[in-house]
């Protein structure tokens, strides 16, 4: 399992050589956000040092350069997810804003009382709360696809829940808490049979799996840049052109208009219609560099190595009697959530931190999953291609120490 040169890769990420509490950092919180390769950090610095300027309006050299870099990045993203048209790529602040955009713009315009929105028991709060608010406002029915004890969707129930009132099926591709990889192609195909709009939350899959929106044939797909080794405050909404075109603006202001008078305003064309105001130019340019970096390693090699880490971590942690893994789907990404008898995840988090290990503890913005499993919280180790077997061993040994303290 040495297709990747891990030492070289780790060298590309300055943060990974940090020392935390006098211990080398073991960063296992990649599902919360990934570290950034030097290429991304330099792209941001390069923009601010050499061509900081606003986009889409200046005639001067710097503005032309930044506009070109910005639109190049959009094109890289289009290719990365194989969207048909560049206008289908909308820059947002993250997956959360992208979902809010769909709900506020498409949802508010096209859904009506009695319509049903179908989500799953394993959604991130960002794919629950916006729908709840709209459901209250418009008297929609929010329905939830249940999951089994392994943390997998119960597809027979999903099939039965679909009906002529189902107008939206909005589903997470990979659960940030359980690691479950959902059968999104099946769900999209089924939803399309009854004419529902399909939305895929790819926040946790874009960095692990090859995504082809044309092959999936989903209507919308969202992800964040910062989980894809890019800057925070960046994200993407992909939407089919015809849908985006008929949707009303989400926010309004500069850059999203063609002309404004006090009598009437003419909105700009896609994608600018949905990009009001000066965006995170440096961040969105740098996101393109993150994609270049990932493609230099290839998602196929990343997926293979991360699966190897997942298998090792799963086997190693399963050796500990007091520890229970939450989320045991057959098809899983490199996320291991666990609970330990009589030790609260928050204490685990603080004690692991004392050994330099960063994990996430809590409900991971997925409280309904916690309720489903009857637990208040979990500790979650999530692995990236820059993690190593040695780091998993450090985690294992630290967990043994914690169990001893609480005995």
């Amino acid at each position: 399992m040495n297709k990747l040169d891990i030492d070289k890769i780790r060298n590309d990420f300055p943060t990974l050589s940090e020392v935390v509490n006098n211990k080398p950092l073991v960063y296992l919180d990649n599902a919360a956000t990934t570290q950034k390769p030097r290429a991304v950090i330099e792209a941001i610095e390069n923009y601010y040092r050499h061509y900081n300027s606003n986009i889409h309006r200046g005639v001067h050299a710097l503005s032309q350069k930044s506009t070109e870099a910005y639109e190049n990045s959009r094109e890289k993203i289009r290719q990365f997810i194989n969207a048909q048209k560049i206008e289908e790529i909308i820059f947002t602040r993250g997956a959360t804003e992208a979902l809010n955009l769909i709900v506020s713009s498409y949802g508010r315009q096209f859904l009506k009382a009695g319509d049903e929105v179908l989500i799953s028991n394993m959604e991130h709060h960002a794919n629950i709360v916006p729908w709840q608010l709209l459901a209250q406002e418009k008297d929609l029915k929010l329905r939830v696809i249940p999951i089994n004890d392994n943390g997998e969707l119960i597809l027979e129930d999903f099939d039965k829940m679909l009906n002529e009132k189902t107008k939206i099926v909005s589903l997470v591709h990979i659960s940030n808490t359980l690691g479950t990889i959902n059968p999104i192609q099946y769900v999209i195909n089924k939803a399309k049979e009854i004419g529902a709009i399909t939305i895929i939350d790819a926040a946790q899959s874009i960095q692990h799996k090859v995504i082809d929106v044309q092959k999936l044939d989903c209507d919308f797909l969202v992800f964040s840049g910062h989980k894809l080794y890019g800057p925070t405050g960046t994200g993407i909404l992909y939407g089919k052109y015809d849908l985006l075109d008929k949707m009303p603006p989400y926010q309004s202001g500069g850059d999203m208009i063609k002309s404004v008078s006090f009598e009437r305003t003419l909105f700009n064309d896609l994608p600018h219609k949905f990009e009001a105001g000066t965006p995170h130019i440096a961040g969105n340019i740098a996101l393109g560099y993150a994609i270049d970096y990932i493609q230099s390693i290839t998602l196929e090699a990343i997926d293979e190595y991360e699966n190897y880490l997942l298998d090792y971590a799963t086997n190693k942690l399963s050796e500990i009697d007091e520890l229970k893994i939450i989320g045991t789907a057959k098809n899983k990404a490199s996320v291991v959530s666990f609970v330990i008898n009589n030790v609260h995840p928050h204490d685990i988090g603080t004690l692991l931190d004392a050994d330099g290990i960063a994990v996430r503890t809590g409900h991971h913005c997925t409280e309904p999953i916690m309720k489903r499993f009857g637990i208040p919280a979990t500790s979650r180790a999530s692995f990236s291609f820059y993690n190593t077997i040695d780091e998993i061993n450090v985690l294992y040994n630290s967990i043994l120490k914690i169990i001893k303290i609480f005995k």
Partner: protein
Amino acid sequence: MNEIQELYQQVILDHNKNPRNFGKIAPATNEAEGYNPLCGDRIDITANIENNIIKELKFNGSGCAISKSSASIMTTLVVGKTIEEAKELFDEFHKIVTAGIRDRVDTLEIGKMAVFAGVREFPSRVKCASLAWHTMINAIEKKQEKEINMN
């Protein structure tokens, strides 16, 4: 003692394992639910208050060692006190966990709270230590947090 040992000292581990006044009072004159969005923990405080005096007070729920032991010690401190005295204790506790400052170290109560002085080195854990105290204050003042109600 290093910082982590100070945080997880024996008194705290003991109260975590054997919490005092754990459970629910029914019927209760006062109750409140506290919630820590950071870790998803919930705590219920139920109390019987008569003539301005906290006759009985219990906590229920799940929590980390810091929040559970803090709740446990809090209950042992406020039972028998007046509402005003309980609020004064809360002020003292808040100072200890945020700044480690102790105006008066001469009382038994302050001595018991002092085990939480180590929390100030862990800013993300201050909420854990204070949750039960905040919820106790909400209970005695009869305040409650707002939620979105989908029903």
